[in-house]
């Protein structure tokens, strides 16, 4: 046992040292603008505002001109586009006339700068909210027992989003919708929202599942609150589309196990949807832990599962393609139908677990994820745990070793003495026993 724990400790210490030496934590300066270039296109922008076609632009920059440019938008569907450009400082320019037209191509573009190189563009868009009547309580979209009448699909293009304020410098903002996605007679205080937090340095999200922050990502919370579901056994799912400016054929969702659940109690897995699994530099990710919460306070008690599904080619699905094309994805990627250097895949992410009481239990679901550039952060065992393990296991082991040595030494020293006593007592006992 001493060996095992010593080995563990050694491993843990090595990991810590490696971590300390290898990680050059990048920090980025974050600058966020709501309604960028709105003043230059007063009329179009006014229309956009009245329609709730929000656009938020964030630049996450370093002094070495290694910058990330984010566009968050509800034009068409809720979308995040993330571009990495190096070589020179630049900015994204927004042409609201084009953004409000049918052809979004080139409505968002990089300001000319000498030596600017756009290395990679990546986008995550949410196309549909799926509601299903989970009579078998399997919490799976693939359940064969689900009948056609058990499904309700809502395209995000049909949703009306609250208009963001004209000015704000917050790096945290919410796309919220309170109407239009359920029948008027069922109306209550229901709301659906995507909230974003652009990160410029490392750390952890303050709320469960406390996903790790890096300077290369934005954290995203999806909340579906107080909505009166269509069925008493309703569960929900999101359809997500990933668009990547890369030549790979496949995307992949990997699931990594970790023995350490200290940041998100009870969750031992982390999922990464990788846009380009074999490349580090031309790659983006959507990262989440397979946990969502049925209550605002996000405790272990309200935790339920998140399930993901097979990645399919979106090019086979015209509706989704046109939804994506008419979002800000089309503005930055251009004609995605015909570009051969763009890969577009989609997957579903469903919330719930057998026996969790369905959405109806609290009329609430929240799911957290991160969208970022490069490689997703990996969970490492914290120093706190290592210290506790070292103290909890190391001290007794040391005590036992020293105690053992002490006893052996004492025995060796006093062996002759003991022999005398025991032989004496034996000779005294023997006659009686016999």
């Amino acid at each position: 046992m001493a060996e095992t724990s010593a080995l563990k400790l050694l491993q843990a210490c090595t990991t810590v040292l490696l971590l300390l030496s290898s990680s050059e934590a990048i920090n980025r300066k974050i600058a966020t603008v709501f309604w960028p270039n709105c003043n230059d296109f007063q009329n179009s922008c006014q229309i956009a505002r009245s329609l709730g076609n929000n656009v938020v632009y964030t630049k996450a920059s370093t002094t070495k001109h290694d910058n990330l440019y984010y566009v968050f938008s509800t034009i068409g569907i809720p979308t995040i586009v993330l571009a990495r450009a190096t070589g020179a400082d630049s900015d994204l320019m927004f042409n609201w006339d084009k953004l409000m037209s049918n052809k979004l191509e080139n409505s968002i573009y990089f300001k000319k700068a000498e030596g600017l190189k756009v290395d990679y563009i990546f986008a995550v868009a949410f196309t549909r909210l799926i509601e299903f009547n989970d009579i078998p309580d399997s919490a799976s979209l693939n359940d064969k027992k689900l009948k056609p009448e058990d499904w309700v699909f809502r395209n995000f293009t049909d949703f009306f989003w609250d208009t963001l304020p004209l000015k704000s410098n917050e790096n945290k903002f919410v796309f919220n919708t309170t109407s239009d996605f359920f029948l008027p007679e069922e109306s209550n205080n229901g709301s659906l929202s995507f909230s974003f937090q652009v990160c410029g340095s490392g750390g952890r999200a303050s709320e469960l599942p406390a996903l790790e922050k890096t300077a290369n990502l934005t954290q995203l919370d999806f909340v579906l609150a107080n909505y009166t579901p269509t069925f008493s056994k309703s569960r929900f799912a999101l359809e997500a589309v990933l668009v990547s400016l890369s030549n790979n054929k496949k995307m992949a969702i990997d699931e990594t196990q970790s023995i350490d659940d200290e940041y998100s109690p009870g969750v031992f897995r982390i999922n990464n949807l990788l846009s380009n699994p074999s490349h580090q530099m031309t790659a983006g990710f959507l990262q989440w832990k397979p946990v969502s919460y049925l209550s605002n306070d996000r405790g272990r008690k309200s935790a339920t599962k998140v399930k993901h599904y097979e990645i399919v080619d979106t090019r086979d699905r015209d509706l989704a393609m046109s939804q994506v094309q008419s979002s800000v994805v089309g503005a930055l990627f251009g004609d995605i139908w015909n570009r051969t250097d763009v890969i577009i895949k989609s997957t579903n992410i469903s919330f719930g677990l057998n026996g969790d009481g369905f959405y109806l239990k609290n009329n609430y679901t929240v799911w957290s994820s991160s969208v970022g550039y490069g490689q997703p952060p990996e969970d490492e065992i914290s120093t706190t745990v290592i210290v506790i393990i070292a103290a909890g296991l190391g001290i007794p082991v040391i005590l036992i070793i020293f105690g053992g040595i002490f006893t052996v030494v004492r025995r060796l020293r006093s062996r002759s003495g003991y022999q005398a006593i025991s032989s004496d007592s034996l000779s005294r006992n023997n006659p009686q026993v016999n």
Partner: protein
Amino acid sequence: MGEKDKEESENSPLLSSGSSMDIELTGCGATPFCNPTSFVHRYLIVLVLICFLSFGSYFCYDNPAALQDTMIDDLDINEGKFMAFYSFYSWPNVVLCMFGGYLIDRVFGVRLGAIIFSIFVTCGQVVFAVGALVNSYPLMCFGRFVFGIGGESLAVAQNTFAVKWFQGKALNMGSTVNMNVMQPIYDYIDKSTHGYKCLGIALFVGAFMCIFSLLLGFILAVLDKRADRLLKRKNISAEEMIRFRDILTFGFPFWLISVICVAYYVAVFPFIGLGLVFFEMKFGMSPTSANAVNSLVYIVSAVASPVFGFLIDRSGKNVFWVLLGIVVTLACHMVLSFTFLNPYIAMVIMGLSYSVLASALWPMVALIIPAHQLGTAYGIMQAIQNLGLAVISLTAGIIVDQNGYLILEVFFMAWLCLALIAGVLLYLWDASNGGKLNLSARVRHLQEAKLNADDTDKAVQ
């Protein structure tokens, strides 16, 4: 502990052989079925009765957990109020275990004590059930309190019975069987009571179990009295009366054993309490298989305890087996927390190591404490264990909520390390004080033979 008179009471079984019977048995009494010295009578009847003596209280203790959702919905209470049902049971017991042991040893005697505590258990459960029927939360709490007064003290009485009937060779087996066999039986019956819609009626089923146990208590008392009469078993005489504060004289090894007991048990039972979700989340198991894995420790130990009890009884070396049990359990916790290896194996091995530990640990008390103080000693051990379990269960829940299962496992490992330290100290103390606890069974029997010879000498004088 070297004094002769004490060793005499520790090592000479109260039921040593049939030759001590003075009265010639006739009729039923002569058959193995009724003869109190026969194997059939002792094992098939008395052991079963002893086991089922606490069946009712075991059954009802976890009634709230089994009916958690129903209770919270039906009574419209929150989790905190729900957990109070357990607090009301536990807290009085921290004191009452000692008191109960004292009452059994000194005031009522084991037979009357068992009956009185059974009545408390039954009344408590009835009040609890009535409280549910009339939807009165305070009444239910009062019921759990009364139930608690009887519950753990009844376990002490049960233990004292086991010691009385099976001291000596069969003690390991007897006491460990009754400690481990109840949980699987309860689990089995619990499955069929799940369907009850009406909370009050479900609780009355529990009350019926208590009445059943109470009746067995009466039968056991009759058989025990009869055996006392036929075998002229020693009664604890007034001269041997100890003062309550004599627990201070129990000595260093007793307290070490108590430390091992509490530190080990808190690393096993609260873990099982929180295990279900752990297996679901970490190993991706369905609730059914997670439940199966979680109950492995109970099932394995129910099967293995009699076997280990017997084997350890034959081999002696109790301290060694205790240390082995702790180390193996620690290894199991490490496998569960640091790897993703199939938890079935780790849990089965944990069940085995728990059996080894329980089989070796509890009988050690009988080796160092005079028989007439055993009730008090076991009572104190159980009181400490209760206090530990009550506090650590709460703490463990908080740790899981705040820091997750890895930290929880590290916390349990720290307790096992404490148990290990106490075990090593016990070994060191024992080695420097004659090695009595860690004797092999052969040497122990040799000593017993010597003591018996001494007894004969004294009798002649």
